[in-house]
């Protein structure tokens, strides 16, 4: 082999491709990123999937799994209690209706209770003229409470 042929062969010699690339990047000032393997591609997907699954499980646990001990249970109890109280009020109204059927029709418990107090006072004061001249606020309040039937009774006298 003569010298000329040896020199031609030397022209074909090339550097390692990976070395060439990293050297080039180093000269150009780029950060060198190693070539991605199949693990590098799959791992983020697995990590994201696991995170999403965990979040979903937590949401399900919060809204369904723990519902027995959560405010949702309290709302159910509150509804039940409100209904039970409504029944109690109806029982009281039905009890009052023996003497005051209009109260049941009107469905006003508080009014019934306050009136039952004032009417008893009215009966005493209006039927007793000796107490009549009392010019105080209490008398005014009592006099305002004379009902239709009581007024009729007064007219009969």
């Amino acid at each position, binding site marked *: 082999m003569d010298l000329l042929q040896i020199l031609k062969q030397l022209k074909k010699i090339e550097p390692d491709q990976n070395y060439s690339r990293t050297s080039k990047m180093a000269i150009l000032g780029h950060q060198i990123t190693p070539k991605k393997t199949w693990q590098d591609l799959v791992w983020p997907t697995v990590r994201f999937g696991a995170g999403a699954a965990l979040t979903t499980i937590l949401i399900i646990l919060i809204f369904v799994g723990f519902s027995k001990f959560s405010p949702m249970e309290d709302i159910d109890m509150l509804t039940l209690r409100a*209904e039970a109280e409504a029944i109690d009020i109806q029982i009281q109204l039905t009890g009052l209706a023996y003497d005051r059927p209009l109260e049941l*029709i009107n469905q*006003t418990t508080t009014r019934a209770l306050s009136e039952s107090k004032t009417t008893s006072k009215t009966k005493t004061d209006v039927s007793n003229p000796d107490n*009549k001249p009392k010019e105080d606020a209490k008398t005014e309040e009592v006099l305002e*409470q*004379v009902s239709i*039937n009581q007024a009729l009774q007064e007219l009969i006298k």
Partner: protein
Amino acid sequence: MSALAISALFFLSAGVTLAAENKKTEPTECNFGDKIQSLELIQNNAKLGESEKIKAELQIRKQILRQIISCSSEEARLLKLKLTDTSIVDRLVEKLKLNLITEINQAVDYYQNKNSQIDNLGIWGSKNMAQQILDWRRGNYAQLIERTANLVAWNNNQGMIGVAEIRLAETKKDLEVEIDNQKIQEVMDEAETNLTKAKTLNQRAREALLNSNNNSINYLEIIKQSLESLGKMYDNFFEIKELATDT
């Protein structure tokens, strides 16, 4: 959501309480205290001559009678309005409601008739009319109000029983897993018994309501007992919830 819907139905059936506030059957401005006081002052006024006293007394008596009739008519009108607004599913009870409305119309006619007679009254006549109206109110009209109250009470009970039935079904469904718990099963059976009792009493009340000639039945007592059974059923629900939480 379903709980909210059922609650809405429940409170609606309980008498539409808030709406009814604006339609009270007893007019609020019908108090006669000041006029009765004026009447008493005239009767006890020694300074007035006999004829002046009679004239003044008659005038105030007529005013009171007119006010009484106006208030009574308004009371009847509002009672009718309350009945008209009550929606009833049961056909026979609805028929009873219409009969009651007719009777209320007759009551309004009665008051109008009395009102037309006031101008011609003397003192004795005014006392007589007051007695007649009082007797009529204590007899016919009080009975009319009582029957209306009975109907309203029964109608309110229907909504409450309806919701209680739904609640029982819901509670049963919720506890399907825990139903093998002996104590829960016992309380659940008790709840069912209470509901059955409430419904039986409600049916008795309906029959009594439709048969108004039978005065021996204490109608309101039956309704009250029915409601008390419903109340006991809710106590059972609370006990079941407590037991279910403990397990």
